[in-house]
């Protein structure tokens, strides 16, 4: 958690760069490039949300709403007003950031569960709005014909091209976030998680930092939402329901909330579970998710990333007992 070296990032980047090529060669995993686009989109959200949970010690059960606002702002502005998608993405970020500030600032002054409940209520309200404001959002039927993205006239017209775009975003955000964690701000955040009172007395403006992280995580969710809308060319409200917010929590808890790699590993595993490996369970997959979340919370409080450390500790204790 303290120092994140350049080597893992470089190795991970190498893995991502060759991934579509390998997946293209092996028919059994031919559709994995498509799934990896979603992994990348979810990574954008979990990196921010993981920062909020692991570093600022706060929980949000409403990030599906920020993800949805990003997607809908992009969809509405591009299909109804024909504006440039990149410009719309920027507007979506501004809108989401402002809303996140308005929701987060008052509840982050309070302790513990209040942000969880406020974001839960907010998420459900936004979900109802997506369903009810039919003249804007198309209601439960959703919105179709959302244009794809292009860079300098170069159309992103294949899964592979989107793959590199989305993962490009992920790496920029990853490196930026790691730099934040390793700066003074990151130290302040960790201090908040350890003890708010101590952080406060050391001159850290606790609630300002918490609001900043919350807004940052909402902005990343908005960005992910815009990318999702342009990738699928279609959105409807059910993507942005309460269960998606909970799925994000599961990703972070499973991967490990005290380490930025946890957010990425968790997003990867849960996305592959829901797109590929849990088909057999159909809608009963919710039981599997509940079980995963409970087992991780009880037995793996640091997530999969914390597993090696836990095993090592166990091993050392065994040794000293002998």
């Amino acid at each position, binding site marked *: 958690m303290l120092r994140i070296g350049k080597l893992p990032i470089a190795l991970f980047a190498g893995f991502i760069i060759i991934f579509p090529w390998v997946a293209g060669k092996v028919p059994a995993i031919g559709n994995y490039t498509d799934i990896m686009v979603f992994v990348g989109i979810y990574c954008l959200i979990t990196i921010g949300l993981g920062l909020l949970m692991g570093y600022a010690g706060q929980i949000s059960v409403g990030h599906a709403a920020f993800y949805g606002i990003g997607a809908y702002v992009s969809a509405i502005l591009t299909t109804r007003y024909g504006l440039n998608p990149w410009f719309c993405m920027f507007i979506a970020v501004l809108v989401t950031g402002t809303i996140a500030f308005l929701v987060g600032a008052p509840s982050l002054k309070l302790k513990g569960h209040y942000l969880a409940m406020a974001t839960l209520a907010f998420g459900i309200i936004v979900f109802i709005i997506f369903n009810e404001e039919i003249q804007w959002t198309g209601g439960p039927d959703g919105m179709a014909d959302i244009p794809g993205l292009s860079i300098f006239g170069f159309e992103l017209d294949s899964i592979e091209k989107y793959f590199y775009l989305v993962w490009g975003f992920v790496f920029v955000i990853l490196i930026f976030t790691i730099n934040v964690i390793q700066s003074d701000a990151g130290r302040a955040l960790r201090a908040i998680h350890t003890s708010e009172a101590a952080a406060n007395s050391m001159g850290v403006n606790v609630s300002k930092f918490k609001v900043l992280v919350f807004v940052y995580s909402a902005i990343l969710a908005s960005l992910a939402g815009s990318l999702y809308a342009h990738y699928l060319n279609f959105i409807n409200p059910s993507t942005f329901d309460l269960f998606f917010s909970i799925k994000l929590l599961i990703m972070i808890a499973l991967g490990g*909330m005290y380490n930025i790699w946890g957010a990425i590993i968790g997003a990867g595993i849960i996305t592959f579970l829901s797109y590929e490996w849990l088909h057999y369970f159909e809608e009963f997959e919710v039981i599997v998710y509940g079980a995963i979340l409970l087992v991780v919370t009880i037995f793996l409080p640091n997530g999969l990333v914390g597993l090696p450390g836990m095993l090592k500790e166990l091993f050392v204790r065994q040794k000293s007992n002998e």
Partner: protein
Amino acid sequence: METITLTGQIFQYLVTGITVGSVYAMVAVGFNIIYNVTEIINFAQGEFVMLGGLIMVFLHVAVGLPLILAFPATVALVTLVGVLLDRLAINPIRRPTVLSLIIATIAASILIKGTAMFIWGKDPFDLPAFSGRDPITVLGAVIQPQYFWVIGFLVLIVIVLTFFFERTIIGKAMSACADNPDAASLVGIDVKRMVLLSFALSAAIGAVAGITMTPIALMEYDRGAMLAIKGFGAAVLGGLGSFPGAVIGGLILGVIESLGAGLISSGYKDAFALIVLLFVLFFKPSGIFGNIEISKIKRF
């Protein structure tokens, strides 16, 4: 046919609102019992209500047990779920933090919801009303006899709980855990058992809410989350931890929702209570009867 006057209509919304509000009040009381003893917000609170309704349908309609037997049997089964929730999800967490406790109850709630979908499927179920469905008309408002059962059980729960917390030794021990768990365990109170008891009690109350509301509103597997968040809204509006607050908060929330859905927009029915919740959190998080000084010394 009589024309429906506006006053008659508003009276109708008030009656419906108070009935729905009684359900929210029962959920809020359940939140408070667990919160007072453990300072945990139990996100699975709404699942107790859902289970109460569906288990009652199973015992009363499918098995055919008479009401007088099915009712206590349902409450007992849901209470058992509450006990299991504490034993399997809350108790095993070795170093509990507010984050891990919230996540554990969220995990439990989706597990319970998924299991309920597995058992009962996705369709809503009806339950016969306790004393028929012949409505009474008062001042132009149609009142179902079941409304009286819902409101009556809320009153009963309030009376029994007041007696329990103020007159019995176990009730007082539970209140002591709420004030200071360390001091409580020093004077010989088994805090872990009190936590277990609080989950059992709160599950039982949730079950009563579910059983009494099902003849009016039906019940299906995914109602829990919405009932939980509205019940929490009621608890916060009244002041988290306060029992009179939970009742008043529940009733106010029910009436606001009923009036909002009737007079403003039925599509936004579920949003009104949540908007009230957000406003209370933002502007007066201590609620009507809450005490901000007390909430500051709470651990979470």
